[in-house]
């Protein structure tokens, strides 16, 4: 079938009036009410107790808790409801957890920056405590007793004096008639009385996942669903000149094929050719037969090799000074030892196992999405601004994502699905990227070059540190690209008296963006490896050297004008000491075997790792053991937290050992897991996870462990073999020794 006799409903739901300049316009009028009847908002009927958006208790005793943020594998759909359940005092295993759609009354809904836990901890506790206080008040009124005589236990209000009790369900209708107490009048539990928080709780979707019934982004099923694929220019930002659309439209199963002109917004709707078909395979097969003439003029001069040459040339000159303290030149001149090192880490792809995609349904009243976005609010705004559709006509359902890692902070797939949905005349459409699309169209972790010089004084201490950082700017040499900047406060700034950072910028066309622990995920490798070099140059033990460098216990605020958290030196030293202790640091190992230590602070988390590796004389690497010491304050879900640490370590080994994205003629060279590998089960080390549950506010754990892995591994390789790894991935270096 081809597009000349339309496969879609004859009724024209939405008329596409223009493609140029990013302007799609909807001609149909939208109803006034918006989405109230479509949304999954918890009911607020008279008999059901709904003290705010997060909790619903029916007279039948069904207790539902709303999970507000996107679930990408970080476990937030389990841990935020746990915080509510703790204060509400209910048996968590009996609770129904409902995933929130994007809505206006639950605060920001995003999965990024390891912020979900710290930003929502108090709000979730208050929601649970408020509901509990109202249930107690309801019982007090029914029994005509003072509320102070009452207590709760796992879903019941109890009057101990008379032996009476009522379940929350029995109290729901009465509680629903009570006014909400003022927020600051509700008493929270004492931390030491927690029963649920800090325990091991399995992911709430596990039973669905192990039976294949959990619905991910790619799994959406809708009546009359059609399937889309999209081919974008392999050269970033390249436009379509022409395409064999007539031939593609004639292929079996293909319903339509058309050029998306797109916009110049690299974070938005890029040019490409879209295919709509009766099945994913029909769309993918047709995609392979596309013959597109692209405008690839932007590509010239953009390759990994060219970038490396530019970096060396820039490092030979002067960069912009971004931090300067003391007198580095003098300290270098009087040093007992000077160490230099040129470090490099490559571009990386997030490689979520579920490729990007989105399901969208354009109807008379707007567009409904089923999205895995980590920032659905930003996605809604992107669609609104790109396609000129009012925000309140865009309904976003948040669907479990097959991994995020920061890739889904961008919303390119969302606006693509919207643009395609406007062409299906009312049929819902599922856009699925191939793995090759995903590998070649990413907001890559930016590569970075660091040219370092360090001085050791006569006492064996670090007296000077100079770093010329060569980074990337998106089509400019003035401002670093997304996630390509270096904070002047980055460690070890503030710990070394003579300290200088210079920065130079290479102009690139490669889109960059945040990936798990952005910034830190490259910087920790450089800083913690070079500190290791300095420790060895000083003839010192790398653990003792680090502890001495950090100095006395104190809290160091960020420099004037800098964002970010203060450094708590006691917490830093505590994790290093614990990792050393738990790993057997200092015990002798045979040649070819070694331990490496690294520490980093990011996303408010304090993490130290000791890695132990074995390298055979012919250079075969085995990571035998990784010992982690982590302080992110109190742990919410011990099972989920340990899983994040184990996973971050395995992810970090993939990054350190195996992964690089390279560019040639303005395009990404890698295409799939055959040339962009992930660590496999047989390469996985033993992992020991040790938490210091300090009495600080709880912070997130999706990110802070990941950056620490490469330097721990590389420092261990040095201890085992004498090979200093200054360039990632490790697989590029021959580790053989004799």
């Amino acid at each position, binding site marked *: 079938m081809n597009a000349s006799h339309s496969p879609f409903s004859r009724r024209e739901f939405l008329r596409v009036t223009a493609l140029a300049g990013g302007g799609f316009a909807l001609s149909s009028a939208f109803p006034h009410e918006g989405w109230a009847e479509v949304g999954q908002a918890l009911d607020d009927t008279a008999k059901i107790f709904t003290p705010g958006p997060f909790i619903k208790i029916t007279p039948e005793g069904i207790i539902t808790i709303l999970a507000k943020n996107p679930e*990408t*594998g970080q*476990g937030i759909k389990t841990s935020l409801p746990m915080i509510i359940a703790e204060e509400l005092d209910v048996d968590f295993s009996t609770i129904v957890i409902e995933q929130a759609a994007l809505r206006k009354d639950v605060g920001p809904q995003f999965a990024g920056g390891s912020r979900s836990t710290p930003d929502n901890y108090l709000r979730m506790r208050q929601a649970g405590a408020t509901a509990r206080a109202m249930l107690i008040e309801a019982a007090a009124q029914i029994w005509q007793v003072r509320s102070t005589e009452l207590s709760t236990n796992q879903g019941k209000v109890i009057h101990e004096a008379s032996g009476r009790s009522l379940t929350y369900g029995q109290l729901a209708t009465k509680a629903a008639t009570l006014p909400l107490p003022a927020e600051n009048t509700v008493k929270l539990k004492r931390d030491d009385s927690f029963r649920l928080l800090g325990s091991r*709780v*399995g*992911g709430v*979707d*596990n*039973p669905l*996942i*192990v*039976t*294949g*019934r959990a*619905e*991910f982004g*790619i*799994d959406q*099923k809708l009546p009359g669903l059609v*399937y889309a694929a999209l081919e974008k220019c392999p050269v970033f930002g390249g436009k379509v000149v022409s395409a064999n659309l007539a031939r593609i439209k004639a292929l*079996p*199963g293909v319903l339509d094929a058309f050029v998306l002109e797109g916009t110049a917004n690299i974070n938005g709707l890029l040019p490409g050719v879209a295919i709509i078909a009766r*099945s*994913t*395979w*029909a769309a*993918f*097969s047709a995609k392979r037969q596309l013959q597109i003439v692209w405008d690839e003029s932007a590509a010239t001069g953009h390759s990994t090799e060219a970038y490396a040459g530019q970096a060396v040339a820039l490092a030979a000159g002067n960069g912009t000074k971004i931090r300067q303290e003391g007198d580095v030149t003098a300290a270098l001149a009087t040093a007992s030892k000077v160490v230099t090192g040129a470090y490099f880490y490559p571009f990386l792809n997030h*490689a*979520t*196992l*579920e*490729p990007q995609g989105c399901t969208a349904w354009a109807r008379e009243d707007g567009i409904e999405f089923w999205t895995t976005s980590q920032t659905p609010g930003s996605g809604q705004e992107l669609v609104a601004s790109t396609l000129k559709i009012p925000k309140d006509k865009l309904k976003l359902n948040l669907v*479990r994502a*097959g*991994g*995020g*890692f920061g890739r889904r902070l961008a919303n390119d797939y969302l606006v693509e699905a919207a643009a395609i949905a406007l062409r299906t005349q009312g049929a819902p459409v599922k856009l*699925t990227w*191939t*793995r090759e699309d995903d590998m070649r169209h990413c907001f890559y972790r930016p590569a970075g070059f660091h040219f370092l010089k360090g001085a050791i004084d006569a006492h064996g201490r670090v007296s000077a540190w100079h770093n010329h950082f060569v980074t990337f700017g998106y089509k400019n040499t003035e401002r670093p690209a997304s996630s390509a900047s270096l904070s002047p406060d980055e460690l070890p700034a503030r710990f070394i008296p003579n300290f200088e950072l210079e920065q130079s910028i290479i102009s690139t066309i490669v889109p960059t963006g945040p990936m798990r622990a952005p910034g830190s995920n490259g910087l920790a490798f450089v800083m913690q490896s070079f500190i290791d070099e300095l420790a060895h140059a000083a003839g010192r033990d790398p653990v003792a050297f680090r502890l001495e460098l950090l100095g006395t216990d104190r809290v160091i605020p960020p420099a004037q004008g800098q964002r970010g958290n203060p450094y708590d030196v006691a917490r830093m030293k505590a994790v290093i000491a614990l990792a050393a202790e738990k790993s057997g640091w200092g015990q002798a190992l045979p040649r070819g075997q070694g331990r490496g230590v690294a520490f980093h602070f990011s996303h408010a988390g304090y993490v130290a790792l000791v890695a132990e590796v074995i390298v055979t004389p012919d250079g075969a690497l085995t990571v035998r053991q990784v010992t982690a010491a982590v302080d992110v304050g109190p742990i919410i879900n011990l*099972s989920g937290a340990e*899983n*994040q640490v*184990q*996973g*971050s*370590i*395995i*992810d970090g080994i993939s990054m350190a050992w195996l992964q690089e994205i390279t560019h040639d003629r303005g395009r990404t060279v890698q295409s*799939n*897991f*055959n040339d962009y590998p*992930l660590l*496999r*089960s*047989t390469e*996985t080390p*033993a*992992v020991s996870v040790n938490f210091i549950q300090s009495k600080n506010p709880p912070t997130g754990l999706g990110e802070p462990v990941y950056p620490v892995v490469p330097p721990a591994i590389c420092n261990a390789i040095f201890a085992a073999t004498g090979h200093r790894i200054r360039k990632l991935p490790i697989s590029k270096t021959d580790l053989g020794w004799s």
Partner: protein
Amino acid sequence: MPTYNLKVNGALHKIEAAADTPLLWVLRDQLALTGTKFGCGIGQCGACTIQINGVPARSCQTPISTVGAMRITTIEGLSPDGSHPLQKAWCHHDVPQCGYCQAGQIMTAAAFLQSNPTPTENEIDSAMAGNLCRCGTYLRIRAAVNEAAKLMQNGGRP
């Protein structure tokens, strides 16, 4: 388009599809069995693993025309109620993070335990080496397969 009679999870389905259509997309798009996942399309990641006559297979590399009357089992058909020892062990060890690869992991593990009911940890790792987990849950996968093997030795129904 040619027609095929597929035997999936014990039921017969008449399917019309191009001969080169990978079983993966027939299962997902035509039979709504979306537990089997698309990860790479080139047989590298194992997210699409199913069993054909009890042997693990990459459904993204299996054209529908090659299946004939063989028995296809997907994650949805592994057990009627999620009570396979592997499914229990997976929940007990809280294996998943994002969960996207786990159906493929479980289908590989289920076939493996049929052929090796008393595996060592190294044998488990080797058997599972074809299934990528982007979140890095390999340690828990190994523990869960180990536990499931013990459950099955003690009479747990596979």
